[in-house]
C-alpha cells in the first residue's frame, strides 16, 4: 500500500505534506493537482511533516490536495535507446512531448518500448553471474550495448535460461536467473536505478593511469585530463566555458558523451540539437549525435529538476561505464545546480553557510565528483567516466563557495581568464593558474613518456617555465619601457608569446585547428621548443617583435593546415629557412666581430 498524505503548506516549490504513513528521505511522491500529477522529492521529514521539493510550478496548488508516495527514490530507466536522446532533467523524452510549450505534469517514456534491437547472447546457461555481468549485447546506433544483470541484484545467480539471438523489444525476457535460494528472476533489457546512489557494480577503482585525449593543446599538452579524471572550468560570463565544453564534446576521444545542460541557455542546447546530427565524429566518421545524449534543464525549466539533472546524467554515465565504455560527462554549469540547492535550503530556513549556500555544499560537490573514475569491471574490462563541469563564479571572483568547494573535489583546474578572453586569446585557459594534478601522478607521467616521447613530461615542464618567465619579463618591460630593459628580456617575452600563440591558442571554429591529435601536438611542441631553445642575435629590440611575429605566423599557418599536407610542409620549409637565415646572420656577425 502506498503512503498517502495531504498538502498543508506551500512556499514556491517547497511543499509541506502531512502523512500518517511512512515516508523516506529522497522518496518520490506525486501531488494530485487537478488533472495533473506533480512530481516531487522528499527533502526533509520532521514528525508527520514531510517537506518535498516539487519539480514543477506549484501555481494554483491548494492546501488539502492529496499526495501519493511512491516507495522509491528518483530513478532513471536504463536500457538500449538512450543514445541521441534529448531528455529533460528527470529523463522525460522532450521529443515525445506534444505542443510548443512544456506542460506541467507531462511525463514521457525515456525509452521506446516497440523498437526492436538485435540481441546476441554473451552468457550461457549454467554461468554464475552477479550484478553488472554482461548477459548479452544489442547494437545501439553503432555501439555494442550490453544487457547486464540488473545492478539491484545482490549476491550470486546462475543463468537458467538465456534468450537466443534475434530481434527483441526492450521488455522481452532476455534471461532467467536463479538466486542462491533457488528463486527465479526474469531479466529484460531494461532496469531502473535511483539517481542519487552511485552504481558500484565493479571490482576496483584504481587511480587514473592514462590520459583522455581532448584535441585541445592547452589541455592535452600542458594540463592533461586523465581518462576517468575530474576537472572544472571556472570563468566569468562570456569567457568561453560553453565553447570549450562544446568542443570537448565534439573532439574528445570518448566512446560516448553525455551533456548535462544545467540551468543555462536553451539556445545553446538547440545548437547541439541542430549541429550534431550534421557533424562527423572524427573518430568513427559517423554523425556526432550518435554518441551524444543531452540532459537539458535550461534556466527557465523548473529549478528543483535542475538539481536532479546532474544526477540523472551521472547515473546514465555509470550505466554505460559498466559496459566497458569511455564516457565523457560534461555539466554546464554546476553553479546553477548549487544555486538550486541554495534556493531550497533558503526556503527550508536552514542555517546558511557562506554566501547563503547550504553548509554541506562542499560535501555534496565532492560526493558528486567522486562518482567519476576509471574502473575495472567484474569481468576485468575497464570503463571510465571523465567528468568536467563548468563553474560560473559570481562577479568572476574565484573566492566564492562553489569554486572553492569544486577546487577541493576536482583534480584539473582550467581557469578562464577575463583578460585573455578580452584580448581574444582563445581558449582563454590561463596558462599560469591552471593545473592538472595528473601530471604529478607517476603512472600518468610514465604513460605520457612511453606513448608520446621519452622526454615528454620534461618538455612540458620546460614549456610551462618559459611561459612563466615570459609573464615576469612582460611585467618588467611594462614598468621599465621597451628600451629600459636588456634585449634578452624581449627575447624571453617573445619566446613565451610564441608558445602562447602556437600551443595555447587554438581556433575553436576552424575545422582543422579545433582538433589537434596528440601526435600533432607532439610535433608542434618540439618545433616550438626548438625555437625557444635557440639563441638569436638582434641589433635592437625593435627587430625582435617583427621577426617573431613572422615566425609565429608561419607556425599558425601550420596549425591551420592539414597535418603533414603539402601546405603544412611548405610552411614548415619557410619556417626552417627563416630560422637558418637568422642563424646565418648571427654567425656572419660573430665572424665580423672576430
Amino acid at each position, binding site marked *: 500500500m502506498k503512503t498517502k498524505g495531504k498538502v*498543508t*503548506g*506551500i*512556499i*514556491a516549490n517547497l511543499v*509541506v505534506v502531512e502523512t500518517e504513513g511512512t515516508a523516506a528521505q529522497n522518496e518520490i511522491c506525486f501531488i494530485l493537482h487537478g488533472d495533473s500529477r506533480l512530481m516531487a522529492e522528499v527533502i526533509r521529514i520532521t514528525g508527520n511533516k514531510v517537506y518535498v521539493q516539487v519539480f514543477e*510550478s*506549484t*501555481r*494554483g*496548488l*491548494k*492546501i488539502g490536495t492529496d499526495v501519493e508516495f511512491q516507495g522509491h527514490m528518483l530513478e532513471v530507466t536504463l536500457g538500449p535507446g538512450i543514445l541521441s536522446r*534529448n531528455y529533460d532533467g528527470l529523463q522525460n523524452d*522532450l*521529443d515525445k*512531448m506534444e*505542443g*510548443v*510549450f*512544456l*506542460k*506541467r505534469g507531462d511525463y514521457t517514456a525515456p525509452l521506446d518500448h516497440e523498437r526492436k534491437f538485435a540481441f546476441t547472447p554473451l552468457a550461457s546457461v549454467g554461468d554464475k553471474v552477479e550484478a553488472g555481468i554482461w548477459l548479452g549485447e544489442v547494437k545501439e546506433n553503432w555501439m555494442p550495448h550490453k544487457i547486464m544483470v540488473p545492478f539491484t541484484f545482490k549476491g550470486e545467480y546462475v543463468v537458467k535460461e538465456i534468450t537466443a539471438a534475434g530481434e527483441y523489444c526492450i521488455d522481452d525476457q532476455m534471461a532467467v536467473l536463479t538466486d542462491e535460494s533457488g528463486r527465479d528472476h526474469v531479466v529484460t533489457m531494461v532496469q531502473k536505478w535511483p539517481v542519487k546512489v552511485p552504481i558500484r557494480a565493479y571490482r576496483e577503482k584504481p587511480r587514473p593511469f592514462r590520459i583522455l585525449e581532448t584535441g585541445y593543446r592547452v589541455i592535452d599538452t600542458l594540463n592533461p585530463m586523465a581518462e576517468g579524471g575530474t576537472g572544472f572550468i571556472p570563468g*566569468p*560570463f*562570456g569567457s568561453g566555458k560553453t565553447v570549450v565544453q562544446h568542443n570537448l564534446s565534439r573532439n574528445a576521444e570518448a566512446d560516448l558523451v553525455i551533456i548535462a545542460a544545467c*540551468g543555462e*541557455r*536553451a*539556445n545553446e*542546447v*538547440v*545548437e547541439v*540539437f*541542430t549541429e550534431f546530427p550534421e557533424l562527423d565524429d572524427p573518430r568513427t566518421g559517423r554523425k556526432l549525435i550518435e554518441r551524444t545524449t543531452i540532459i*537539458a534543464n*535550461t*534556466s*527557465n*525549466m523548473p*529549478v528543483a529538476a535542475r538539481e536532479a539533472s546532474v544526477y540523472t546524467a551521472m547515473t546514465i554515465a555509470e550505466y554505460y561505464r559498466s559496459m566497458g565504455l569511455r564516457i565523457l560527462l560534461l555539466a554546464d554549469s554546476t553553479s*546553477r545546480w548549487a*544555486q538550486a540547492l*541554495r*534556493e531550497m535550503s*533558503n526556503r527550508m530556513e536552514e542555517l*546558511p553557510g557562506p*554566501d*547563503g549556500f547550504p553548509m554541506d555544499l562542499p560535501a555534496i560537490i565532492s560526493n558528486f565528483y567522486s562518482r567519476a573514475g576509471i574502473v575495472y569491471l567484474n569481468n576485468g574490462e575497464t570503463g571510465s567516466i571523465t567528468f568536467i563541469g563548468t563553474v*560560473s563564479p*559570481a*562577479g*568572476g*571572483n574565484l573566492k566564492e563557495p562553489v569554486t572553492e568547494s569544486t577546487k577541493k573535489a576536482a583534480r584539473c583546474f582550467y581557469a578562464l581568464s577575463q583578460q585573455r578572453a*578580452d*584580448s*581574444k586569446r582563445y581558449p582563454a585557459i590561463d596558462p599560469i593558474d591552471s593545473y592538472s594534478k595528473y601530471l604529478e601522478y607517476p603512472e600518468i607521467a610514465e604513460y605520457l613518456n612511453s606513448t608520446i616521447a621519452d622526454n615528454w613530461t620534461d618538455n612540458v615542464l620546460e614549456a610551462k617555465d618559459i611561459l612563466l618567465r615570459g609573464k615576469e619579463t612582460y611585467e618588467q618591460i611594462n614598468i621599465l*619601457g*621597451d628600451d629600459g630593459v636588456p634585449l634578452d628580456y624581449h627575447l624571453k617575452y617573445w619566446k613565451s608569446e610564441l608558445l602562447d600563440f602556437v600551443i595555447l591558442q587554438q581556433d575553436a*571554429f576552424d575545422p582543422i585547428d579545433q582538433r589537434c591529435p596528440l601526435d600533432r601536438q607532439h610535433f608542434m611542441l618540439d618545433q616550438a621548443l626548438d625555437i625557444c631553445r635557440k639563441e638569436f642575435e638582434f641589433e635592437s629590440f625593435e627587430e625582435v617583435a617583427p621577426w617573431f611575429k613572422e615566425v609565429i605566423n608561419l607556425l599558425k599557418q601550420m596549425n591551420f593546415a592539414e597535418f603533414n599536407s603539402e601546405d603544412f610542409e611548405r610552411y614548415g620549409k619557410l619556417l626552417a629557412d627563416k630560422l637558418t637565415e637568422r642563424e646565418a646572420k648571427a654567425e656572419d656577425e660573430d665572424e665580423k666581430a672576430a
Partner: protein
Amino acid sequence: MERETSAFQRIYTRLFQLTKATVSLKATGIGNEELAIVDGRLAQVVKIIGEMVTLQVFAGTEGIATNAEVVFTGKAPALRVGEDLAGRFFNAYGEPMDGGQILGQEREIGGPSVNPVRRKQPSELIATGIAGIDLNNTLVTGQKIPFFADPDQPFNQVMANVALRAKADKIILGGVGLTNDDYLYFKHVFDNAGALDRIIGFINTTENPPVERLLVPDMALSAAEYFAVEKQEKVLVLLTDLTLYADALSIVSNRMDQIPSKDSMPGSLYSDLARLYEKAVQFPDGGSITIIAVTTLSGGDITHAIPDNTGYITEGQLFLRKDSDVGKVIVDPFRSLSRLKQLVIGKKTREDHPQVMNAAVRLYADAANAKTKLENGFDLTDYDERTLGFASAYSEKLLAIDVNIDIDTMLETAYELFREYFSPAEVGIKQVFVDKYWKKEAATAAE
C-alpha cells in the same frame, strides 16, 4: 477600478499580519499564486501555511487596516490577448490606459517555457543601421541582449532607433520604472515614425508603486508570445530598466525575511531573470521573440549581482561609452559582444565581414595601446601615430551611435579607413579578400 464579482469569490475582513509589501490572513481553499484584491489593491498569494495565507500587495500596504476587505479571485495573473492589443498602452496589470476593453481571451502570464526541441537555431539578422551593432555585434532574431549602461547614457534613444529600424511586426515596450519623460519620449518617437500601430506598451513609471513593476515584463512577454506563437510574427520586446525589476524583487524577498545573497539580492535572482530572458525564442514557422533590455549599472560596476547574473543569462551585452576624442557616444567595441553574431556574419552578410570586423577592432586596440604609451611618456612609432588617426576616424564614422548605413556600406567604410592609414599587410586580412575588396588604385598607393 471595476472588477467582476462572482459566486466563487470569498471575502475576508480580518488581516493577521502586515508588512510594507505583504499581508497575511486566515483563509481556506486558496490556490498558490492566486490573485486577490486587498482593500481595492491587486495582490498575489506567495505563501500558504495551513490556513495562513501570505499575499504580496503590488501597490504596497500603506494605509491598509487590519479589517480591510480581501477578495480572492481564484485566478493567477492574466492578460487578455488579441489583435486589438496593437497600438495601445497598458498599465502593469494589463489594463488599457485608454479605458477601453480588449476583446481577446485571457492568458495566464509567466506561463510555461518553450520545449527546447521546438525551438529553431536563430539565423535571421536584425539590421539596425548602427555599425557599432551591425558590424561588430550583429543581432539576430530570437536573441536576448541588454544594454549595460550608466543611468546618464542615451540607451533609451538607441533602443528606440533600433526598434524602429528592426523591421519587427510588433514592438512591445515594457517600461519598468520608466521616468514619465522617457515614457513620453518613446511614445513621441514611435508616433513620429508613424509606427504606433505596431507598438504595444506596458508601462510602470517611477510614479507607480515599485512592486507593481514585477508584473510588467511578464505582461509584455505574454503579449509577445501571443503574436509570435499564434500569428507567427517577429516580435521585438524592449525592457527598460531591469535593474529596477531586480530591485523590486529584493524588496519583496526582504519583506518575506528571505536570506539575501550577494548585494542584498534574493538567492533566486539568476532564475528569476532567466525566466524572463529565456522567453526570447525563434520558432521554426518564422515567429520570434527578440529581447533588448536595459540594465543600468552603478558606477560602471559589472560585478554587481544584477549585471553579473544578467551577463550569465543573456547572449552578449552592449556597452555605450562617451568617446571624448570625437565627442560622441559610441558602442564600445571591446566590452560589447553579441554571442549569436557568428550565426549570421559572413553567412548572411558579405564573406569578408568577420575578418574586416576583427581587423578593425584589433587596430583600434593597437591605438589604445599607443595611447597608454603616450600617457606613460614613451615615444610613439610611426605605426602608433597611424593607429591613433585610424581610431578617431573609426569612432566617428562607424562606432558612433548616430551612424545609420547598411552593412555593405559599413564594410566599404572600413576599407576606406584601412586604405587611408595602413598597408594590407598591417591590416592582416586574408589575401583573397584583399584582392577582391581592397580597391586596386588605393592598394598600390598604400604600398
